[in-house]
């Protein structure tokens, strides 16, 4: 579950990773989550008069063969990597807002059953924030392990531990899926995009 933090991006990332290493987490390579925005071209919306929709196409290095496509508050499609090729074919109908591409890159840590990924969120050349993703691997129902996750996060994030993500208020007991992770990243990226250039401490 990603969380945004502020202050000097590089320093905060270092503080967090040092805390994690002190706890005993093992570094296990890098990760990357990226998000591209597509909007419906004016030509398709002509006769219908609806507002253009935004579609997000995301990739997560944890699932290297997949592509995730989502609409805000809408369905999330999990497809294989060829979906990107399809989006190229659809460029007459969906335009890629290249300036809006946002990604989070960083280190992946494993601590017992937890997977922690601390990444720097960048949009173009500038660093805009920090994402922290914490996954408790054995559990597939969010409600069952939320308290455990909170406790673990407090041990290295202190006051910045977030509250329960909004999407779980409706579906506490349903099985968690990678689509849920991507939806949370999308919300986080949208929040960061709306912030000023200088990141301010923002908690989800």
């Amino acid at each position, binding site marked *: 579950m990603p969380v945004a933090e502020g202050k000097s991006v590089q320093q905060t990332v270092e503080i967090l990773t040092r805390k994690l290493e002190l706890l005993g987490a093992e570094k296990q390579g890098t990760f990357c989550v990226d998000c591209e925005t597509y909007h419906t071209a004016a030509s398709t919306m002509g006769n219908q008069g609806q507002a253009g929709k935004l579609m997000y196409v995301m990739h997560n290095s944890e699932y290297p063969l997949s592509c995730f496509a989502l609409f805000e508050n809408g369905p999330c*499609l999990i*497809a294989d990597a060829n979906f990107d090729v399809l989006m190229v074919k659809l460029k007459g109908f969906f335009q890629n807002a290249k300036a809006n591409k946002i990604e989070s890159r960083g280190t992946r840590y494993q601590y017992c059953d937890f997977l922690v990924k601390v990444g720097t969120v960048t949009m173009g050349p500038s660093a805009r924030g920090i994402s922290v993703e914490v996954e408790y691997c054995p559990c597939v129902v969010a409600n069952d392990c939320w308290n455990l996750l909170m406790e673990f996060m407090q041990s290295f994030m202190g006051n910045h531990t977030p509250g329960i993500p909004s999407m779980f208020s409706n579906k506490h007991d349903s099985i968690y899926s990678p689509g849920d992770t991507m939806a949370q990243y999308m919300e986080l990226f949208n929040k960061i995009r709306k912030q000023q250039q200088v990141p301010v401490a923002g908690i989800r």
Partner: protein
Amino acid sequence: MEAPPVTMMPVTGGTINMMEYLLQGSVLDQSLESLLHRLRGLCDNMEPETFLDHEMVFLLKGQQASPFVLRARCSMDKTGTPWHLRYLGQPEMGDKNRHALVRNCVDIATSENLTDFLMEMGFRMDHEFVAKGHVFRKGIMKIVVYKIFRILVPGNTDSIEPLSLSYLVELSVVAPAGQDVVSDDMRNFAEQLKPLVHLEKIDPKRLM
């Protein structure tokens, strides 16, 4: 729990364009068994594979004259398999001597909420049908013999009726662009199926 082997982003640019090479023909119902018998002999040794698929064709209309077509297919008899989304481009008109119909194709496996997602993107279903038949393989060639069923009540795949008294036979290969030797191999294979079925290059535009 190790990091997946690919920890850098997958390369999305520079993907190879895949083309579908296609030959089609048909057989009347009464000739089906002889055709299947010959195919079992000619094709790779494998368990006889039948399929029952539901295909929906979606259109996205824009200001361009021709709408964008996508085909969504799901298996009705095998649970748990992903849905198959397919884009087929216009047939390449180049070489009249080329033996097979060649068109760009993009195949994508997706999760089950594909139809909801396509509707959200603005696509609308144009038509749907059920396909029931057999599939064979010979190397990279795929041979499909199937019957198309019309769906009487939209969305209800239980009430279907056959569209015709014959089976459609398709010989296809999906390969990177520029491999014309593929169509020669296909033609040679098609020769072995004569006179049971005549597989030829059928230009969809000439039928409309």
